[in-house]
């Protein structure tokens, strides 16, 4: 047990307690002499009161001494601390001390009513209070922000303030780096002793043991600091389930505007978990629930599906039932559910036999719906001029003869204004006429018709798709290994295109001739397929890849494919926002309602997970620009490091990993209030003693 002072210099004021004694002694020597006749009466009076007077005098002296003693001592803010290890600390001598507090996301883990960070902060305060008066100290909150450690000082109040203001963040922390910074800061103190206290949950992900252990640079050379690591988890395991991934994609199988939310959940605990609840919340309503079984240290995925009632912007969250670390148990999302599209299919070669009709396969693919509900209108080429193109999102010209200049001009305007145009070729197409009338919208001009093989001739080899661009949004759904439906298709006849740099080739035939070429004009997109979409020149329409490709292409051309991808970013990063035409973005507000900096369209300080909302000037929310920030999964990994690894890294002889604070019983009892109360009491007593002799 010992007493420490927050303001030790003021404690010297306690010497004022000698003043009453000195005054008393001085007064004793200098009473006024006075010859008095009735001295016998005085003597008798004194004898009658001698005991009371002596007691009163002692009480008066004690009260005055207490006043002058208690006031400076109270100002010095003494604290009574129960033993701990003061002798040990004193034996170690004064040291420049750094207190490193882990403020990473995993420190938000709650055990009971307190988080690990709360524990660590209390431990840090205990350590701070237990320092010798000669110890200088610096506090470094390791919160992943890369803040630097200040040089150690004797300003305990500043250190306490730093601890009081510290908060756990949603970012991962590099404790190895923070300890290195602390060691660097200790080098600025002339005190020879160097000590680092690290308060952490000992999660392995926070340490990078492949780097050199920190040393302190002093005038005498490099020295290894004494390192004391205090486990905020007190040696307990930290089981945690985390929602590591969320993929949102269309789920046409449940109907138009159906969406599938595929979650990936990881169990970082050593025990299997069954029936872990996951729920999908759209707006404020729970719209789907599911349950997962997770093996120990294992991963599981689950799909939650929901059919949205209408197209538009939606916000929501996927949530797991809570555990100790709640922050990684949910993911917010903001998605655009595709609106209903209208497609005009122009059949250039209609047939009374449906399966021979040019538009049969395309029409079937579009009417299947897909993720974007489509309203399909099919007309023949002769009817095209009478159609109002701007009533549609998408126009598909299937083996249509070259339109006249009027229709061609309207098509060009349609694309210019953002419409999508799909062109497939065939025997009705005259390349020169096409180049003449539709040259403005074609990705490339047509050149010649090539026949790779005659249908039915086994000795001839038809062309096959190669060099598919799987990065393109249309073909992304296939990916490597899933392109069998493409590679198996055979094409006997197709148009060659004029060479040129215009247009992006999404797929080619095996002779290098482009098969799918994308172009753009104004706001619109154009996709050119150089063969037929019926079975006249190719069997691709009957391959499994045809239908999804047509559906993806129609969504892409009508600019609804990108909208299906949820906008999301990692916490700590930045996010670029593209304002629609005529809209000036004013501010972005985070999940906590606070504004975030918006500089040249980029939002920064995305410091917490959740939904960020974008507002235009005038306070109008731009729902289609909302986006979600999610956590770095590394902090969800609460598996703990073996303390021996840390001791080995730091150097075992000067490193100590404690599961519980050795000075945990070192509770400090502030004495200043008691002293102040005593001073007041003594003051009142002194007054009463004076007034009542």
């Amino acid at each position: 047990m010992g007493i420490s002072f927050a303001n030790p210099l003021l404690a010297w004021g306690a010497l004022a307690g000698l003043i009453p004694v000195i005054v008393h002694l001085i007064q004793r020597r200098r009473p006024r002499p006075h010859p008095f006749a009735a001295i016998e009466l005085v003597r008798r009076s004194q004898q009658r009161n001698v005991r009371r007077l002596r007691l009163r005098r002692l009480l008066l002296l004690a009260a005055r001494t207490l006043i002058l003693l208690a006031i400076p001592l109270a100002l010095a803010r003494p604290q009574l601390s129960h033993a701990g290890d003061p002798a040990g600390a004193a034996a170690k001598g004064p040291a420049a001390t750094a207190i490193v507090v882990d403020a990473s996301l995993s420190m938000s883990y709650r055990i009971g009513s307190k988080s690990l960070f709360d524990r660590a902060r209390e431990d840090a305060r205990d350590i701070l209070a237990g320092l010798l008066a000669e110890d200088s100290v610096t506090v470094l909150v390791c919160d992943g922000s890369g803040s630097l450690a200040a040089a150690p000082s004797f300003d305990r109040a500043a250190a306490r303030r730093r601890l009081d203001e510290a908060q756990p963040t949603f970012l991962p922390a590099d404790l190895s780096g923070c300890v290195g910074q602390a060691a660097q800061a200790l080098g600025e103190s002339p005190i020879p002793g160097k000590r680092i206290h690290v308060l952490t949950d000992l999660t392995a992900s926070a340490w990078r043991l492949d780097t050199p252990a920190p040393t302190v640079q002093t005038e005498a050379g490099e020295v290894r600091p004494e390192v004391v690591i205090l486990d905020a988890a007190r040696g307990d395991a930290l089981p945690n389930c985390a929602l590591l991934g969320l993929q949102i994609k269309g789920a046409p199988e449940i109907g138009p505007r159906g969406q599938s939310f595929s979650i990936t959940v990881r169990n970082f605990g050593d025990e299997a978990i069954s029936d872990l609840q996951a729920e999908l919340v759209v707006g404020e309503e729970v719209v789907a629930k599911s349950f997962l079984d997770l093996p120990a240290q294992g991963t599981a995925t689950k799909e939650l599906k929901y059919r949205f009632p209408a197209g538009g912007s939606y916000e929501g969250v996927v949530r797991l039932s809570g555990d100790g670390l709640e922050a990684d148990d949910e993911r917010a999302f903001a998605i655009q559910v595709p609106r209903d599209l209208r497609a005009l299919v122009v059949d250039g070669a209609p047939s009374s036999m449906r399966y021979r009709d040019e538009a049969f396969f395309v029409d079937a693919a579009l009417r299947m719906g897909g993720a974007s509900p489509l309203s399909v209108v099919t007309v023949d080429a002769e009817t095209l001029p009478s159609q109002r193109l701007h009533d549609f999102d998408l126009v598909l010209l299937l083996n249509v003869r070259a339109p006249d200049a009027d229709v061609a001009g309207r098509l060009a305007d349609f694309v210019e204004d953002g419409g999508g145009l799909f062109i497939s070729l065939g025997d009705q197409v005259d390349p020169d006429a096409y180049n003449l009338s539709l040259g403005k919208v074609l990705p490339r001009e047509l050149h010649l018709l090539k026949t790779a093989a005659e249908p039915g001739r086994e000795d001839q080899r038809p062309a096959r798709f190669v060099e598919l661009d799987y990065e393109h949004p249309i073909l992304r759904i296939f990916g490597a290994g899933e392109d069998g439906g493409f590679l198996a298709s055979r094409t006997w006849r197709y148009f060659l295109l004029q060479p040129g740099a215009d247009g992006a080739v999404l797929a080619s035939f095996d002779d290098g001739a482009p098969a799918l070429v994308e172009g753009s004009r104004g706001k619109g997109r154009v996709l050119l397929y150089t063969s037929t979409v019926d079975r006249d020149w190719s069997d691709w329409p009957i391959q499994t890849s045809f239908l999804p490709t047509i559906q993806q292409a129609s969504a892409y051309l009508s600019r609804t494919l990108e909208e299906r991808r949820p906008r999301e970013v990692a916490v700590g990063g930045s996010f670029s926002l593209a304002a629609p035409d005529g809209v000036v973005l004013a501010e972005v507000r985070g999940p906590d309602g606070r504004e975030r900096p918006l500089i040249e369209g980029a939002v920064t300080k995305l410091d917490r997970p959740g939904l960020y909302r974008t507002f235009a000037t005038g306070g109008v929310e731009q729902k289609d620009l909302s986006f979600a920030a999610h956590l770095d999964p590394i902090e969800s990994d609460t598996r703990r490091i073996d303390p021996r690894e840390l001791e080995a890294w730091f150097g075992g002889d000067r490193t100590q990993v404690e599961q519980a604070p050795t000075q945990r019983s070192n509770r400090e009892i502030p004495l200043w209030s008691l002293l102040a109360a005593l001073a007041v009491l003594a003051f009142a007593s002194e007054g009463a003693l004076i007034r009542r002799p």
Partner: protein
Amino acid sequence: MAGNLLDPKLLAKLGTTQLRARTVVEGLLSGMHRSPHQGQSVEFAEHKEYAPGDELRHIDWKAFGKVDRYYVKQFEHETNLRAFLLVDASASMNYRGGDGLSKLEYATTLAASLAYLLVRQQDAVGLVITQGKENRYLPPRAAMGHFSAVMSQLEGLEGAGPTDLANAADWVAERARRRAAIFVFSDLLDFNPKAIARLADLRRMKNEVTVFHLLDPNELEFPFEEATRFEGMEGEEALELDPRSIRDSYLEEIEALCERARTSCRDADVEYELVRTDAPLDRLILRYLARRERS
């Protein structure tokens, strides 16, 4: 104006006790006092050996011729009153609390004033000054010349030694053979029941006994505030203390002393007058004389 002039603080500035006494007495209206005894007698009674202060005209020259010693002739009822002024001149009577009169100065002034009053109306005044075991004595005489002798004893009197009123009372008892008025001036600080017993004896001898109990205001009120070293005036050991701490007890003690003196005097049929030495002398005398007239 007379009241102001007779304030003890002003009287203290007057040079001599005689002057003070005359100032006091002259301030009183003549005729206010009349002797309680009517008529005079010049019938010879006996001889008495001459002592300083005796009227020379009463020396019996015939007797001188016969025995070669001076005798004076004494006459029955040659005066209205024989008064003894018994002044306590112990050291404690020297106490002076402020800038007024000390108790002894007050006592001598009071005694002188009474003597002057008495002599002026042909009463005989004797004086006993007691200082411990020693007593100085002037036998009662009524002549104005005797007043000078009284004043010569009182003038410049300094207190010394302890108080022994009992001894002095004994001493007076031996000499007050006839009915006499005995005035005692003392602070009674060594209050001795024997002294009161002696005074009671005097009273039983048909004497009128009046005790003027003189106390300084400081002794009655104990107004001291600061730490004080109280030094005894009759050789007592000094005391250092905070006066405030014992004030209540002291006031109880002094009150008890006064009450004891008052009670004892009342029991002994002795007239008792507590006198503060800051009280105007003329008022005191007037009050006393008025009381005597009523009795």
